[in-house]
Each structure stands twice: as C-alpha cells, then as structure tokens.
C-alpha cells in the first residue's frame, strides 16, 4: 500500500506476443467456461436435479425465443459498460473495483436530470441525461484517483469503501430529497415517456441503448489500439517507470483512465435507469460493478473480448432465473459459475506447471 502499490506489475497485462497468442487466449477462455459449467453441473446434480434439463432450461431462458434473446442482450448492456470500465483501469495498471458505486451515481444523476427537465425536447433531454450520468460516474471515480496519486492511498480499498459510501448516500437521497411523491419506497418518481430510448426489437424491452453500447465498444477498441492516448495508457499499465522515463505524463494518463472508467460505469447506471427500471431505485445494480471485473478478466481486457464475455454472463444470469423457476435450482449458481470461470482463466498456468513437473521428473 505504498506510493508505488501492487498495481504496477499488476493486472492481466496482455502478454506482448507472437501471432497465435490471441487465439490461444480465446481457446483458454473457452476451456475455462466449459470447466466452470462442468463444475456447475456437479452442483446441480448434488442439488438433486438433472444437469441436462437444468442447463436446458438455462439455455432456453437465455436464447429460447426472441424475447429471451432480447432480455439477454438487455442484460449485456450494463455488463459491457462495467466490463469496459474495469478493463480501461486494468490497462492503465490500476484497479477499479468501484464501478458499482460509480454506476449508482450515474443512475441517480440521469434520473435527477430526467425528472428536473421533463419538458426538454427528447433530442436534448436524452443526451443530457446520458452525459450527466457519465460525468457523475467520472467524478465519483476521480476521488480514488486523486487519493491514490496525491496520498498514495491504495485504490483497491478506497474504491470498495467508496462503493459502500455511494450505496448509503444514494439510499439517503432516495429516502430523502429524491424520494417519489407517494413517499413509500426508496425510489424516485417514474420518468416521463420523453426520456425513453426507442425500442430495438418490437414487443421486447431491448432498446437502442444496445447499439449505443456496441458503438462504445468499437470506440474503445479504436481508442485503445489506434490512438496515441491508448498506446500511452498501455505503456503506463505495462511499466509505469518506462512510461515516465520516456516523458509520458503518467499522472495525467492515470487520471484519464480513472475518468473514462468512471464514465463508462456511469453509463451503465443510465442504461439501467432509462432502459429497465424507468426510475432510480435503491437496488439498481445486482452487482454489475463486481461482475464487470469478471467480464474484464474473461474478455482479456480487450473491448471485443469484454463484449463477448458480457453477453455470455448475461445469458448465464438471465437463463439462471428461468432455471430457478423451472427446475428449482437457485439462480445464485450463476454467480458461482462466474467465479469459477475467472479462477480457471487465471489458473491456466496449472497445465504448464503439471507439464513441467512431469518433464523434470
């Protein structure tokens, strides 16, 4: 927890490598997912349910018809945002475990603007809600960034602590100044129709926010791999000292990574408020910020990988709800499978180790 914390060597730094590396990484990720699903099958069997029918229900719930596909993609929206948020921080050699709190602030800001300016034309209203959500998320993530750079306070712990602060502060807002006029629940009034994002598929909840997120993924990919900012960010993440010695503004780059990260988490909050809840509520996020860490790791901290991982976990979560109703297996199984996926991804050195042992024996 010193001024030069653990995070410098940190993160799943992408092995700068030869040509086949990307393919091998994807293969390793797929194997990790399959292994985790196999472990999940064992748990389902122990629960007393046939794993094949449970997974069948899960698949059906995630992709069975147009509506379930729409629900899966709808769930992938916030997961992609928080996954990208964590990935950008990883790339810069820092940890953002605070996406959960940043998301909450983003959601609250979006709802506040939407409720305060309902008569603005949608063409102005929608961007200003989205913008304020991103700014709110970015500002909340600036705090741990400043605490790290100014005081050397480890961002791992500060971001987690700030999550709790954010959740309780939002709870205060929702029971206090922002509470619905009815005054019962910890939520704001319902947002006006003018704030709605147009539907993407008719008679489903999927909205054009999904296209916006696809755009954000493309933009992130471009920013990371085809701009000098992205290049510098990656150098800082791989080796801060080298970056400093070659004259890069390491502090400014780190701050920019925190800001981008927070803005993306704030965007997730906007999407949930506008596209799913239609108001700000106390439990807006069932852990999207934390799942974002897993999404980023499985996606190899690359934007396209994050998108794929987000859709996979979204399918797992949406399908698990169907599995719970149909087969009685608790949907928290999805959380276990997610955790196992990461452990298998980061544990892929086991195979090398086993081979080395055998070779030397």
């Amino acid at each position, binding site marked *: 927890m010193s001024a030069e914390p653990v995070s410098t*060597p940190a993160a799943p730094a992408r092995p700068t490598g030869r040509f086949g590396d990307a393919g091998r990484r994807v293969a390793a990720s797929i194997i990790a997912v399959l292994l985790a699903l196999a472990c999940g099958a064992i748990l389902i069997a122990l629960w007393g349910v046939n794993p094949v029918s449970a997974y069948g229900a899960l698949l059906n719930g995630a992709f069975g018809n147009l509506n379930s596909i729409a629900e899966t993609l709808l769930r992938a929206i916030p997961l992609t945002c928080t996954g990208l948020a964590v990935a950008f921080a990883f790339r810069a050699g820092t940890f953002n475990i605070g996406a959960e709190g940043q998301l909450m602030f983003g959601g609250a800001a979006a709802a506040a603007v939407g409720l305060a300016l309902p008569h603005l034309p949608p063409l102005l209203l929608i961007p200003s809600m989205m913008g304020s959500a991103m700014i709110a998320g970015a500002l909340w993530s600036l705090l741990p960034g400043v605490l790290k750079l100014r005081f050397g306070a480890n961002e791992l*712990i500060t971001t987690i602590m700030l999550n709790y602060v954010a959740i309780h502060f939002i709870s*205060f807002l929702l029971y206090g100044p922002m509470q619905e006029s009815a005054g019962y629940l910890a939520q704001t009034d319902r947002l006006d129709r003018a704030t709605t994002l147009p539907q993407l598929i008719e008679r489903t909840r999927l909205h054009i926010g999904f296209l916006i997120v696809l755009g954000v993924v493309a933009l992130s990919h471009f920013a990371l791999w085809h701009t000098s900012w992205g290049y510098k960010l990656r150098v800082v993440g791989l080796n801060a000292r080298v970056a400093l010695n070659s004259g890069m503004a390491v502090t400014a780059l780190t701050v920019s990574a925190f800001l981008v990260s927070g803005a993306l988490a704030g965007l997730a909050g906007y999407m949930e408020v506008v596209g799913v809840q239609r108001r700000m509520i106390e439990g807006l996020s069932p852990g999207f910020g934390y799942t974002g860490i897993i999404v980023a790791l499985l996606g190899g901290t690359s934007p396209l990988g994050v998108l794929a991982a987000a859709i996979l976990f979204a399918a797992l979560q949406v399908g698990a709800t169907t599995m719970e109703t149909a087969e009685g297996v608790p949907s928290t199984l999805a959380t*276990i499978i997610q955790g196992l996926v*990461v452990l298998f991804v980061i544990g892929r050195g086991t195979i090398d180790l086993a081979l080395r042992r055998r070779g030397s024996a």
Partner: protein
Amino acid sequence: MDTILAFLTDPVFVGFLQATTRLAIPILLAALGGMFAERSGVLNIGLEGMMLTGAFVGFVTAFLTGNIWFGVLMGTLAGGGLGLMLAFYTVTLGTNQVVAGIAFNLLVVGATSFGYRAVFGMGTAAPRVTSLETLPIPILADVPVLGPLLFQQTALVYLALLLVPLTWVIIARMSAGTAIVAVGEHPQAAETLGISVARTRIFCLIGSGLLAGLGGAFLSLSATGLFLDNMTAGRGYIALAILLLGRRHPWGILLAAALFGGADALQLRGQGLGIGVPYQFLVMLPYVLTILVLIGFAGKVRDPAALGQPFRRAKAE
C-alpha cells in the same frame, strides 16, 4: 467524582463499551491474519472471502450439530482451506495476488449464498443459533471501562484477545517470525539461508485464512447468531486498512481495531438514539474512516520490500 463514576457505569456507556469489543474482534482477527500474509510478502485481498467462508461454514456446522464450538472450529478450518487455495494461485502459480484474491472473494459470495439455500431451502425465514453467552470474569468484570471492554464478553472474545500476544510472540520472538519477515523483505536472501520462500508463504496464507475464518465465525456465532448473504460487508477490506494503521504489528493492530470498533459502536448507538443525522450517514462512517486511515497512513508506513511480488526461484544451472 461520583458523577464520573456514574457515567462510566451507566448501562448505555457500558453497552457501548461491550459493543466496541464485539465489533472490533472480527476485524482484529482478520487483520492479524493479514499481518502474516503481508509480512511474508503476499497481499491478501482474499481476507473478505475467508471471513465470509468462516461465517458460513461456522454457522451451518453449529446449526446442524448444535455445537457452537464445533462450528467455530470448522469455520476456522474452512478459512484456512481457502488460504491454502489462494496460496496455490499466488505462490505456486505466481498469479497476480490482487486478481486471485478478488476472484476468490466473488466466488465465495456466490458459493455461500448457494450453500445457504442448499442447507436451509429457498424460504425467507432466517434460522438462528443461540450465540455464545457472555461469560463475565469475576471481580475484573466490575472494573469500570476495562470491565465491559475486556471482561464482560463471550469466551470467544477472550480467545481472540489471547491471540494478540500469541501472534506477537510468533512474529517478534520466534525464529519462524524472523523467517517470515526475511521472506517478505528479501526473498532471495532468505532462500540462500535455506528458508523456502514458497513454503513460508503457503504457511502464512493458511494461517491468514485460519485467523480470518475465525473472525468470520465470530461474526455469525458470537456477535449475531445468524448468517446473512454477504454479511461481512467489506470487513475483510477494512481489515487491510486496520493492518496499515496498526503498522502490521499485533499490538498496533489491536489498538487500531479497538478504535475502529469504537467508531462503529458509536454510529450504531447514534442510530438508536436518533440524533437527527440521517442514519445512512452513520452507516457510512466506518467506510469513511477507513478511507481517512488510508489517506493518513499510506506512504508513512514502510511496506515489506517484496510485498505483492510473486517469487520465482532462480533455476540452478
């Protein structure tokens, strides 16, 4: 004089003192565990998951067997088991310590919640166990301030408090402690002295898990008598800050944890008394305090030189 004594023995104040210790103990135990890991050079982000594992396994065991102490034992061992698994990742595989710790924490949240439903069904009723009884120590319990703080507690509190001098003896007065510190400061040098870096770190992580698991079991079996999803609520991370505030030293950690327990007890009392501050701000206090600790102490406490770095033994040619 009488008024002072009357205040010191006032039931509200006595209750506050008892609560201070009750709230400090889980963090104290986790931080002591973190001390062994960090002194040997491993940043143990997994404390949170180890605590939650201990709380869950301890509760379930106690509920099913009807024996609280057997629950405490199993919760402690389960924490140690998680420590062993984390050691496999961070020491044997050399995985990034932070990533591995977070991955375990997230897995444990899901696994305990799933396991709870597996044991108690999907209903909403929260089963309870009779938590440990207060066991006042004769005479000492009547001493003002110190009595309620230290001698009007459960047997598990006394056990936890005894672990402070015990860990101090291990880390400061025994050769094992010297070896741990050597591994954390200069692993290469330690290896040349014949100390196995890998073995030392594995043992430290297991010890770390045992202590954090005990802290978690305390939470479910001594402090509350029930288990709730994610009931540790960040205490494992708070323990990392307490560790820093206590300068990675058992006595310092004891003081830091007591201070923290006091602040936590104060905010709980504040909620009960209704002092006009929205309760959310009171609940925030421990987390804000943790951030303030980090601001005040980061960079002022020297870290073990090898903290956070995986160690690879140089290949003998």
